[in-house]
């Protein structure tokens, strides 16, 4: 669905991506891991055609980004920026959510229904008429997330989607990712949140100096200490206590622990 082939890119002097090659598959949530400055956010920007490779190619759903701009990608790709303020432009949450669908020429009834669905899914119905900037930063991130869900794009690019969120918000974002993946969508998430990686992601690539250094399950990557991250303490505790569970997700660990010694 998303294919980076030998992508090279630099902002000014220093190369940021140096021959980056990876793919994100249909029905998969892929994590991009790496230290600060490894090129993760840059890779997302290239997927959205906000910028273009100096060499190599980026294709999304067989569409090469060469010669295209973000306006050519919006029907296909939703992008949650690392800074929600960079993508909130309207004066109420409801209008903000409608913006993308309006730009794509949807009929008003269809927009209203899709916006209501996204408000519900992101637990924002209570603030629909509030100005996004009157909301605290964590809520603003959920507004930005909801705004890209409205048109149900095939691809979601999420840059640190759980940063600043509380426990409830983090669980909500993980559930949204799993719903999209189950419906055949592709999610690419940049994250430094090990618990989110275990809950929401299927596979990961680790970037270092703009190249893929390692590829594997989130568990394998975290176990190897990618970007200084570690397995979530709950997973480590469960494994050291000798629990055997269906997966490393919290719900499966909890049921294994409840059965353990009983």
């Amino acid at each position, binding site marked *: 669905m998303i294919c980076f082939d030998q992508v090279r890119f630099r902002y000014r002097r220093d190369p940021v991506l140096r021959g980056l090659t990876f793919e994100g598959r249909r029905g998969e949530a892929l994590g991009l891991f790496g230290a600060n400055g490894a090129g993760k956010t840059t890779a997302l920007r290239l997927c959205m055609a906000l910028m273009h490779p100096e060499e190599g190619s980026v294709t999304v759903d067989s569409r090469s980004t060469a010669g295209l701009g973000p306006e050519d990608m919006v029907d296909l790709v939703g992008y949650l920026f690392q800074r929600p303020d960079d993508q909130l432009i309207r004066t109420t949450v409801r209008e903000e959510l409608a913006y993308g669908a309006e730009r794509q020429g949807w009929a008003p009834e269809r927009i209203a229904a899709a916006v209501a669905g996204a408000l519900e899914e992101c637990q924002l119905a209570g603030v629909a008429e509030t100005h996004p900037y009157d909301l605290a930063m*964590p809520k603003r991130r959920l507004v930005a997330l909801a705004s890209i869900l409205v048109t149900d794009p095939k691809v979601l690019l999420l840059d640190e989607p759980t940063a600043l969120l509380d*426990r*409830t918000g983090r669980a909500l974002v993980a559930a949204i990712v799993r719903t999209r993946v189950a419906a055949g969508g592709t999610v690419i998430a940049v994250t430094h949140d090990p618990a989110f990686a275990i809950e929401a992601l299927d596979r990961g690539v680790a970037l270092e100096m703009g190249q893929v250094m390692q590829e594997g399950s989130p568990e394998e990557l975290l176990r190897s200490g990618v970007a200084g991250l570690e397995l979530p303490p709950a997973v480590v505790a469960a494994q050291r206590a000798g629990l055997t569970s269906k997966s490393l997700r919290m719900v499966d660990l909890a049921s294994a622990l409840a059965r353990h010694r009983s």
Partner: protein
Amino acid sequence: MSAIEFSRVSFRYPTSGPVLRDVTFEAPAGRVTWIFGPAGAGASTLLLAAAGLAPGLTGGSLEGSVRILGQDPGSRSGRGAVQGKVAYVTATPYLQLSGMAESVFDEVAFAPANIGWDRARIEAAVPEALARLGIGHLADRIPEELSGGEQQRVVLAAMFVLRPDVWLLDEPTSALDGTGRELVRAFVRAEAERGCVVLFATEDAELGLALADEMVLLDEGSTVARGIPADLLGTELMWAMRAGSTGVGELARAANRLAGERAAHLAPPYPLTVEAAVERWR
């Protein structure tokens, strides 16, 4: 006198209902105090009030008394008296870059130059501040072109260079990778040991547990509990207040709810760390 004192503080933004309600607590020098609560509990607003920015910058109205180093940060004279002594880092540090500096070195030199330090003093102090935050290698880079996590450390360095007495930190590790998180954790601890008062907000209970001497638990703007994080985080109160606990605590509680009363070894207080959990569950 404690370094930070809130006495019966209530606050509302221009367009909101009460966000802080009758909050009283103090944060002493040399200690790390953690403001914790679910999203919307008022932790960020409390830091804004401590910095004198709510209502000064945000608008709204504040009742009660806020004192920082004995001064009212909301008054002109109080602000003058604590200038350069209070470091406030928001959850969105990229908004705190000066926008005037063409290199990370210049960004960190910006405040010292503004208050009239001579060149030799600046040239000695800036590299030291960069080294403390592990960003010496970024000295020549353009601040706006750095990643979010790198900018977070640049902003910390730009404040550390003045050796503040007070740190007000809102989600200080939100954009950091694992290595950066460790570094900032050690940095904050060392600042408390230097004698600073540290007041910080985070939703990361592992960070709070590792860093804080005391927790102030907020719910809908009210202080509902104060105590040692390790004592509070294992209790059901944390869940009743929707704040939650560490990942290990969350797993322990989820299992306890599934197992019910037949599993005494899963009953609260819940373990919070890997070591404590393995001890109880094995």
